[in-house]
């Protein structure tokens, strides 16, 4: 079946409602998914959950801006970035699910807060609700995409061919995300007194969550050759952030660290207060009406 335009395909025929986003086939359908010999599969599954949850939870946060951004183009931009990250999350959760015996939907919608492995930077509330600000969301996008891009550029060499392929593909998307955030940071930082003040405040808001991005987790240490040691990314990411902040006339905030709970943070399933509210919104439909489709 083919159509002269995309809207016609929404109007009729079985299986014709793809644009509404349900009824997808599995994210890695037909991809060669052999596990490399000698890899610790449980650790690989945990690692895929870490990287997948970072993308899933940040995607949910970005989607909150849709229809509430400062301009229409920005609604579309943040939603597009969210969609790229959601695609990366689907593939990574599917890879984790092969080991765990679960589907991507079960992992996204039926895990509880303590089972999520995302970093705190992905989950904190930077708006559009009360207390948040578009500039803080841009600051988070700048830090997150600079870090993930550096990570994915190394993950291309992973001994797991599926992770390597996901990274190779995602890298190109992340380069667009980082450029978008960097250009907004310069525009706001080098703009009016008010935009400069708010961009600087946005950086101060997210900076306590930067340190966690570079802390090596035992799961990463167990996956030599498969995972990327995040500690190895620090100087590259610092260099990128320095270049952006300098062009924007902004000051790098002091390196404060958000509190951990008995040494644990997001990678251990210990989250901040807002995580439960985020999951309630993300999961309630699936949990209220299991298997619901549009």
């Amino acid at each position: 079946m083919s159509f002269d335009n995309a809207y016609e395909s929404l109007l009729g025929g079985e299986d014709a409602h793809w644009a509404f986003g349900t009824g997808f086939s599995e994210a890695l359908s037909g991809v060669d998914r052999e596990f490399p010999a000698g890899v610790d599969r449980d650790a690989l599954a945990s690692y895929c959950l870490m990287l997948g949850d970072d993308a899933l939870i940040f995607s949910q946060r970005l989607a909150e801006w849709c229809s509430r951004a400062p301009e229409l183009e920005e609604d579309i931009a943040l939603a597009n970035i969210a969609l790229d990250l959601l695609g990366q999350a689907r593939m990574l959760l599917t890879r984790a699910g092969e080991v765990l015996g679960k589907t991507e939907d079960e992992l996204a919608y039926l895990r509880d807060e303590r089972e999520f492995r995302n970093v705190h930077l992905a989950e904190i509330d930077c708006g559009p609700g009360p207390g948040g600000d578009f500039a803080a969301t841009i600051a988070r996008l700048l830090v997150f995409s600079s870090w993930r891009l550096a990570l994915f550029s190394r993950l291309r060499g992973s001994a797991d061919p599926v992770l390597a392929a996901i990274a190779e593909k995602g890298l190109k998307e992340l380069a667009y995300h980082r450029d978008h955030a960097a250009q907004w940071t310069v525009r706001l930082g080098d703009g009016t007194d008010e935009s400069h003040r708010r961009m600087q405040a946005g950086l101060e808001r997210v900076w306590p969550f930067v340190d966690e991005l570079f802390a090596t987790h035992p799961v990463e240490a167990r996956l030599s050759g498969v995972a990327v040691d995040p500690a190895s990314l620090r100087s590259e990411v610092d260099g990128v952030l320095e270049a952006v902040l300098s062009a924007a006339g902004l000051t790098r905030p002091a390196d404060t660290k958000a509190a951990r709970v008995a040494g644990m943070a997001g990678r251990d399933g210990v989250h901040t207060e807002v995580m439960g509210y985020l999951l309630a919104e993300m999961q309630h439909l699936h949990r209220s009406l299991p298997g619901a489709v549009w």
Partner: protein
Amino acid sequence: MTTALEVASAVRDPELPVLTLADLGVLRDVSEVDGRVVVTITPTYSGCPAIDEMGADLRRSLLGAGFSEVEVRLSLSPAWTTDWISAEGRSKLSAAGIAPPSRIGPSVAGPVPLNLVPPSRQVACPQCGSPNTSEISRFGSTACKALRRCNACSEPFEHVKEI
């Protein structure tokens, strides 16, 4: 007799229906083994919601053409690049008022360069042909398109952005 490759090559992209999947470069392989057809496609972007519809359209077209068994496989590596859009595909995009992507060449190893200002690509206006155009937004109506305007004829237009 029509081959499976011919049938698969004629299937259109659900989001850019002026292009076939072959024009777009997402159709990577079609092989026929004992009447069983294996089609390999690759997504444009990780979150592209059209990928399932592409698979379903390929299946419907091939079954409709008399092939009894059809399997659609996804390939992630090598990652899709706009350089795979065919010359014919580029002409079709221009004719439809969508600026085709520039050629970017193979990706290089090492750190990805940061762009603090949008890269100044020469994107000609598909309406009047003027090279004097500017980017309105890097992100447009679909993941693969940016929004630009022509500074000569003032028309806004879409541009399949380089990736």
